[in-house]
């Protein structure tokens, strides 16, 4: 015990320990500083503040971050919190000839735009991934539910790009859906610039005919069918969906990334 005391009392050891402790404290403090990025004044510019994390996501231009906006209620899906966004905040549903107002049918499509701001110099791009969900009709049986699950992801697709060809609206760059939010799926990506609000639009589409479904020939139940039979089968599936589901909705997860947007 006496030897230990003597050892510890040696000034050099003591000061060394103190220096190490000081270094650790400083490092963790500065690391948090760069990671949080919540200072309201840096380089003399007013930074966008709102929420935690490195990006701000709003559903209206210049709007509040969806996770901290008081007027948006929160829902929990798979132990993660989601902000519930009413359709009218995102511009409501598009209107189509031949479709009842405020409703959707095969051939309908709608944009979803998120206004994303990078809150840190090191965040250079965003990535958006989507999960498809539906509200089943009241009297649906488990067997019917299984049938819906097997087909719905082919009928409703989310795309990154919309264009027109010969007067017909078309889409490209489809995303794939996640089951768990940690899944690795095809995401919508784009570039971000520090402190600049960037609109990121994705389109969900109820593919009108089977020929509109990306790569439909590689879907097992359609492969091997001639086009006319495939079209008919798809149309019958549309009728099943129309009869057994009341509505569709999406869970969207958006993250910032230090990597560039690639292409």
């Amino acid at each position, binding site marked *: 015990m006496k030897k230990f005391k003597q050892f510890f009392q040696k000034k050099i050891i003591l000061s060394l320990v103190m220096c190490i402790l000081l270094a650790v404290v400083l490092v963790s403090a500065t690391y948090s500083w760069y*990671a949080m990025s919540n200072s309201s004044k840096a380089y003399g510019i007013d930074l966008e503040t709102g929420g935690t994390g490195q990006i701000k996501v709003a559903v209206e231009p210049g709007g509040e971050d969806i996770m901290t906006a008081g007027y948006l209620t929160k829902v929990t899906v798979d132990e993660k919190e989601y902000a519930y*966004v009413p*359709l009218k905040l995102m511009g409501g549903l598009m209107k189509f000839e031949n479709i009842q107002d405020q409703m959707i049918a095969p051939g309908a499509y709608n944009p979803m735009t998120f206004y994303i701001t990078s809150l840190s110099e090191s965040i250079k791009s965003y990535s958006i991934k989507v999960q498809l969900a*539906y509200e089943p009709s009241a*009297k649906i049986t488990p067997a019917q539910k299984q049938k819906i699950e097997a087909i719905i992801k082919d009928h409703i697709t989310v795309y990154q790009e919309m264009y027109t060809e010969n007067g017909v609206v078309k889409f490209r760059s489809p995303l794939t859906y996640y089951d768990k939010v940690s899944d690795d799926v095809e995401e919508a990506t784009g570039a971000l610039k520090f402190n600049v609000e960037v609109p990121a639009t994705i389109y969900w589409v109820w593919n009108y005919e089977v020929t509109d479904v990306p790569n439909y020939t590689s879907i097992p139940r359609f492969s091997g069918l001639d086009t006319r039979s495939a079209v008919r089968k798809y149309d019958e599936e549309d009728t099943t969906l129309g009869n057994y589901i009341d509505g569709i909705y999406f869970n969207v997860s*958006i993250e910032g990334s230090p990597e560039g947007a690639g292409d």
Partner: protein
Amino acid sequence: MGRKKKIIVLTVCTILLLALSGGTFAWYLREDAKRAQTEAAAVMAPYNLYLMDENAKDTLQFAVGNLHPGEVKTEIICVSNKRPDNYTGDDSDMAEQAKDSEFGYDLMLVHTDNLAVNYTVYALKREQMKPGVDLPEGAVLMEDGYYGIKGDPLEGNENEISKDMRQKVFGSQDISGIVNVGTYWLSTDDEMNLKYVASEKKYDFEYYLIEISWKDIRNFDVYKKETDLVYVVVNAKQPRPVEKAAGTP
């Protein structure tokens, strides 16, 4: 060791402990992902459409039978969104799941080209016969104590539709040698609708009278042994949706 030094050591250790826990706590708190759930978009009810016999109960058995020159045969059909009682299709009865719906449809008659017939389609209004009340002029007797009143003949499109449909079936093939090429007649009335009220389980039934007669032909002998087919097709109208122009309600 002196008391002073003990205190210093203790303080330093406490600070270190706090700093570490603060650092790791900040690490876990940092939630980068923003998540949104959109409100559900309501799905429109799909169209279910059936062709029935004039009794509005059974699937249509359409048979013209023997048709002699100068003769006019009539056939009554019923178009409805109610599934016939003797339906043999595979799907379960959708009516239970049905929501309120209203949709348009059109009527198409197809016959093989070598059949020289004329047909006219009339909208028919079905009324119930009342005991002791005479039937009005021109009434058509129907099953189960009903009669029908002929309306105006339906307007139809023949040439363009035949061209279109042949194009769809045969493509750019030369069809001059093909015997069974179809000739199509498509109704052009935009007001043909079927409505379903889910709360009352109320279906819609619309009746049509089809009159078939031979065209005025000189050498009937050529057609003497013809056995040909006439198809009646009803299509629920569901064209590819197009964005409404800005400003339209």
